[in-house]
């Protein structure tokens, strides 16, 4: 007993200490967690490392806009916006954990502009159960707008991928009625959403699609040659590429290497001028390539004297790591503009409930200076698709050129 005695004593002391420390973990139930008299805390998870790290700059650009508002306007209604960004490396497991950290430990008021379809799906139920607004998620997956009835604390922002697919269908039917369409798409929700939009848009003419070939994100870019040769072999004269930037660049270069010159459509995610120039440097012939846009392109000279573009350049100077020409950065600034708009509207009633209500059903923003003229950001009590307008663009002389006018897909997707 002489030896066990002290040991048991130590153990007992340890247990007593544990029990003594075991106070309540302290949960606040105030309706406006994360808001003080002079600050608002927003949270975000995004990929800043890993395969999708290129998107990470979006959050930094958003932060640059909040910094700009804090410095020039003293914040929103006297409250400075603090923005906490965490790196989820594009994996749902990290997103779940970091979102819990932001909500439970950092006590954020709302989640803003979380990026990625799988990552944001993984936290959607959690945030809705906790009644934490999941605002303006950075994905065009249609579910984030269409499934509002089950998830009414969640709202997207950018045009849904299906809507974009429908716009392409309209363009084909109007200008290339005899097209033999071939599609190269990424085999995930993103590529499949686009394909569905295109098929739905073509409607009874969907037999115009001769063949659709898919690839997986885990594939290597050069292997796309197999799919593209197959499409070429089937006599396709109109090629759709629904891919992420790296694969789009590869596909464009391989298409030229196969000395194949079909009419080519690209989805908007992969069309920033930065990527087009990389594709050109790899030998891809790009003249006549078609896509759509809803945000002003920072590399387009026609906006050189535009007030919105000037403001963007002032704002982005607040972010030392952001490249001015990167299309992702103006996206970030534009969505942050909408966020500030919502907070301004909420005024003194800064509760999660009120902010969510404004975002999901009372948005009516006709003056977002970073979007193409005429694009509105709008939600009503039965329409939860904030942006639905896009404009066809074509590539020539090393730049995108707007064609025709905006096409609106409001109300066509449910």
């Amino acid at each position: 007993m002489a030896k066990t005695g002290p040991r048991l004593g130590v153990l007992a002391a340890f247990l007593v200490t544990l029990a003594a420390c075991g106070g309540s973990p302290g949960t606040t139930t105030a309706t406006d967690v994360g808001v003080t008299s002079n600050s608002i805390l927003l949270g975000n998870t995004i990929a800043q490392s890993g395969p999708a790290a290129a998107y990470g700059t979006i959050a930094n650009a958003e932060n640059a806009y909040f910094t700009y508002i804090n410095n020039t306007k003293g914040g929103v209604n006297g409250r400075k916006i603090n923005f906490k960004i965490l790196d989820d490396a594009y994996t749902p497991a990290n997103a779940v954990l970091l979102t819990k950290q932001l909500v439970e430990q950092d006590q954020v008021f709302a989640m803003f502009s979380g990026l990625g379809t799988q990552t944001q799906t993984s936290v959607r139920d959690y945030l809705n159960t906790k009644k934490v607004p999941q605002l303006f998620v950075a994905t065009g997956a249609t579910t984030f707008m269409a499934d509002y009835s089950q998830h009414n604390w969640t709202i997207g922002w950018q045009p849904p991928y299906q809507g974009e697919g429908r716009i392409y269908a309209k363009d084909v039917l109007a200008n290339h009625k005899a097209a033999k369409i071939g599609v190269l798409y990424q085999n995930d929700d993103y590529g499949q959403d686009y394909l569905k939009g295109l098929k739905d848009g073509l409607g009874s003419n969907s037999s115009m699609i001769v063949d659709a070939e898919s690839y997986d994100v885990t594939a290597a870019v050069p292997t796309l040659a197999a799919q593209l040769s197959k499409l070429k072999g089937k006599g396709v004269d109109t090629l759709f590429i629904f891919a992420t930037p790296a694969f789009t660049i590869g596909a464009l270069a391989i298409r030229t290497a196969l000395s194949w010159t079909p009419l080519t459509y690209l989805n908007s995610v992969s069309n920033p001028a930065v990527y087009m120039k990389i594709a050109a440097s790899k030998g891809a012939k790009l003249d006549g390539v078609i896509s759509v846009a809803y945000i002003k392109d920072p590399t387009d000279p026609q906006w050189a004297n535009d007030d919105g573009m000037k403001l963007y350049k002032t704002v982005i100077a607040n972010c030392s790591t952001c490249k001015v020409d990167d299309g992702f950065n103006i996206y970030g600034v534009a969505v942050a503009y909408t966020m500030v708009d919502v907070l301004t509207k909420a005024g003194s009633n800064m509760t999660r409930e009120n902010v969510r209500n404004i975002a999901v059903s009372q948005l009516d923003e006709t003056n977002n200076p970073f979007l193409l003229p005429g694009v509105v950001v709008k939600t009503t009590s039965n329409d939860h698709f904030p942006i639905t307008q896009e404009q066809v663009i074509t590539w020539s002389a090393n730049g995108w050129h707007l064609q025709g006018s905006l096409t609106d897909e409001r109300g066509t997707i449910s």
Partner: protein
Amino acid sequence: MYRQVQQRLRSAPPRYWLVLVLVLFFIGLPTVITSFQASEWTLVLIFAIVIMGLNILVGYSGQISLGHGALMALGAYTSAILIHRYQVDYLVTIPIAGLVTGLIGFLLGIPALRLSALYLALATFALAVVTPSLIKRPAGLTGGVQGILISSPDPPQFAKDAFASVTSGPPMSSDQWMYYLSLISALVLFWLAWNLIRRRPGRALRAIRDREVAAASYGINIAGYKTMAFGISAFYAGIGGSLYGLAIGFVSPDTFPLALSFQLLVGTVVGGLASIAGPLIGGVFTFWLPIVSSQFVGSQSWIPAQIASVFQKAGPAVTYGALLIVVMIFAPNGVAGLIRTGYMRLQARLRGAGDRGTGQMPPDPQTV
């Protein structure tokens, strides 16, 4: 009887007391930390379970696997599909996931017999590469790229009440319940591993690892033990994967990226190969390193933004690599090995190195 118990207690080596303290620490932990922090430690425990399995394979049997992320995915999907499609109770699905994954692992072990270390690494690596694509194919079963959402399990009433009365706070949350579920699984699986290692199979595995020909000449069934090691290792990964899915509440192809398999292997090596304590340290390491390296650097205002951003982009990967090199140079037996050697040296000094230290057997050679 009482005397015997007293006798055993007195003669128990100090590390038994250390284990007891550690177990009590883990039991008490959720009462002093928040529910969110408990959910972080849940993942530490889950990684520890998977790494324990990997340790049996890599540390004790001397085979290598870069595909344990894929095996975790198999376990997680087994559970998720059973819960979601067949409304099976989640508790029942955990052992089922372990057994299914174990069986698959056992089958994987058969071709592994014909492959030497490098080729085995490549073969298991291929498994990790194709798994995300394979998961997407039967979209009706696996939910395809949308994944499967699992609602977080609610703790049973007795646990809720017990927790509330101990902490005199709110009842047990589902995060805290997942913590205890993982802790119980970890305790059982560590105990099993400890028993396995100390007995005949453990000795046979180590013999095979150190010199296969010699082991065969002693009549050890090499093929049998090697495939068994694969099977057991996969069983651990399956249980871990199942708990991982439940703790996160969502399984999808991206939940199990390629990097996960690397992180697990690095965690095994850093924790300490062929050691029972190693996997726990490995679990702590695997979970906390990416988080600390990405959040710590960003929060330090003295680091210039440019450098911080470069570091953050490559962050976890760089720290993983750097730490692995440091550990290999200064602690080839991992952190657990370092602690053990340190403890032995301390003991030798305390007892007087002159008389006893020299007479000691050198520690086991712990090479893969």
